[in-house]
């Protein structure tokens, strides 16, 4: 009898301990501190004290409603664009990639070898006022003569879409790749048109990938502040920018903490509604 057999009652604890310890130390405890901080009042000079200051929450919602809404809006549009852009790519790689599959996947992940900040700064150059993109759009009269892309919401949404695209493309690929092509053949044998076969067979079977991809894109995108900072103007700032400024510039930790919780709550509500609409099994990918 080895150790684990003799202590079968305690075995699960021991096996789980590293993971639980990690989560507790790096997630639960900091979250607890943050919650505590979000209910403090005072300022950095005189110090903060815990006073159940729920007003931090009401004030945040009241003062920064525009930025909250904008974050959800930008993240939502970017998620949708990423889905539309990466679905055909993932589909093509999964069904037509053949022996190039791995190389093609590498191309999708390739931008990740460069840091986030540099990738975003590259967009600053691509979209610059005297750059190729703006000049072309001006020639085509899409943009007026004085028009620009930098420091507009278009640039921010484009930046977010680009930066989070692989988070969308990879789960989509995985779910599409698992589809048994014979099912699609069967649908066509049963007189489904190409479009019908796609809508009734391929699309539902790839739903776990869509759900995973949209969540992986939407959740970090809603809290992003780099894209709005570098590609947007003051009118395009998202809630991440406000939290950053409250935390670092104003040293108003309670407000920053409260806003973080509000954002977290908003995202949780979104995920919950989303899960209700598409069914929880899609979230865990157990539907087959």
């Amino acid at each position: 009898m080895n150790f684990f057999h003799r202590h079968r009652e305690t075995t699960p604890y021991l096996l789980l301990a590293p993971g639980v310890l990690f989560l507790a130390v790096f997630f639960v405890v900091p979250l607890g501190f943050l919650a505590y901080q979000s209910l403090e009042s005072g300022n950095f000079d005189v110090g903060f004290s815990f006073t159940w200051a729920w007003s931090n929450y009401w004030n945040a919602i009241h003062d920064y409603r525009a930025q909250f809404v904008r974050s959800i809006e930008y993240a939502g549009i970017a998620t949708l664009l990423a889905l539309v852009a990466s679905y055909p790519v993932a589909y093509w790689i999964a069904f037509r990639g053949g022996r190039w599959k791995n190389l093609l996947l590498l191309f999708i992940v390739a931008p990740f070898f460069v840091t986030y900040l540099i990738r975003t700064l590259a967009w600053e150059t691509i979209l610059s006022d005297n750059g190729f993109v703006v000049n072309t759009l001006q020639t085509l009269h899409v943009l007026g003569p004085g028009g620009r892309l930098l420091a507009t919401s278009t640039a921010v949404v484009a930046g977010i879409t680009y930066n989070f695209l692989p988070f969308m493309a990879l789960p989509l690929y995985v779910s599409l790749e698992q589809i048994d092509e014979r099912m699609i053949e069967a649908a066509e044998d049963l007189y489904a048109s190409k479009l019908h076969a796609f809508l009734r067979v391929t699309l539902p079977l790839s739903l776990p990938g869509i759900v995973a991809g949209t969540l992986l894109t939407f959740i970090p995108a809603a809290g992003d502040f780099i894209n709005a900072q570098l590609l947007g103007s003051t009118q395009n700032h998202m809630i991440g920018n406000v939290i950053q400024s409250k935390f670092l510039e104003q040293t108003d930790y309670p407000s920053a903490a409260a806003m973080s919780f509000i954002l977290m709550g908003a995202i949780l509500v979104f995920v919950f509604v989303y899960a209700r609409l598409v069914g929880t099994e899609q979230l865990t990918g157990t539907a087959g």
Partner: protein
Amino acid sequence: MTDQLTRRQLLERAAIGGTAITLPGLLAACGSSGTKAAGGTTSSSHKLAKTLHFSNWTLYMDTNNKKHTNPSLIEFEKKYGTHVAYVEDINDNASFFGKIQGPLSRGQSIDRDIIVLTDNDRYLGLMLRKGWAEKLDKSAIPNIKNLVAVQQHPNFDPNREYTLPWQSGMTGIAYNDTLTDPVLSVSDLLENSKLKGKITVLNSMGDAMTLVMLANGDDPTKVTDKSWNDAFNRIKKAVDNKQIRQFTGNDYAPPLAKGDLSAAMSWSGDIAQIGNKHIHWNVPKDGGALWTDNMLIPKGGDVYTASVYMNYVYDPKVQGLMEAGDPKRNITGIYYIPPVAGAKKWALSFNPAVANNPLIFPSPKTLETVHIFDNAALNNQKYLEQWQNLISG
């Protein structure tokens, strides 16, 4: 198999177990960090440390372009036997303060002997009020006599007991002459419709408000609610009109050089460093701002060694080389404004072109047109909040 745990039980037990394991450990960890108080090395021992840890802003030291070394630091090591571990890890006052305030508030050392903070932001004053700075060892700084007169009694440290200037700079307006006529006033910058969406304003409240208050005919060294509101509303109007493209730190430099910006509220030294002949910098016609980056010794730093280093850079000959560089030896200087009297004489001997640059060694007449923002206003919570809300949309 019947006594096998269900998944749920397993999770429950693990959760309890996990909490039981972690909490005492964590508390212990928190407790012990508090007891490791700083200040152990602060006794006034007159012994030089082996290494001096110096955190500074980017591009803020004389550099040998061939060897990628800092000649004045090598010279210091030769002379005193103390190696300077020099790191340029300060990008702006707020985030650097955010980084060090945690350990300092718990009484821990931040493992630095000298840091540099700006007087037109609130954090320098905050460091002193919180008692997070060590007193300088003036007996080791006889060269303090070379400190220029205007810097001797700042209101945040009236007798220079804790801080010494590293470099100063001016805030004004830069413009790109390929894109616009000269932009020489705040009203041009904020209200000329030809520049709509092509200009930026500094996100540093002290800089921006000083310039706008001067343009309004108000005194930025004594801020009142009325002068504040007038200046604030003038900037807000320019935001609402989409005249202002962005609020920036020193990241205005690349777009200004590329042509995305026609003009920008900007710092003198940055423009001197860009060295682009189409980009011109001026003090606005109603006046500009003057700011100074100050060295200080954070709690727990080695006071004597740091003071000896400060004394070294206040030697006019050393300062002259640091400031102007020396083309014959491939040394690039700092190119801001030195606080050391007599540095210009030496700078002339090393690099006359730089020594005669009015952005680096400004004339007394130029210095009369630049002002230091009211320190009390920098710490006014209401102003701070209004300003941050404006620049963060």
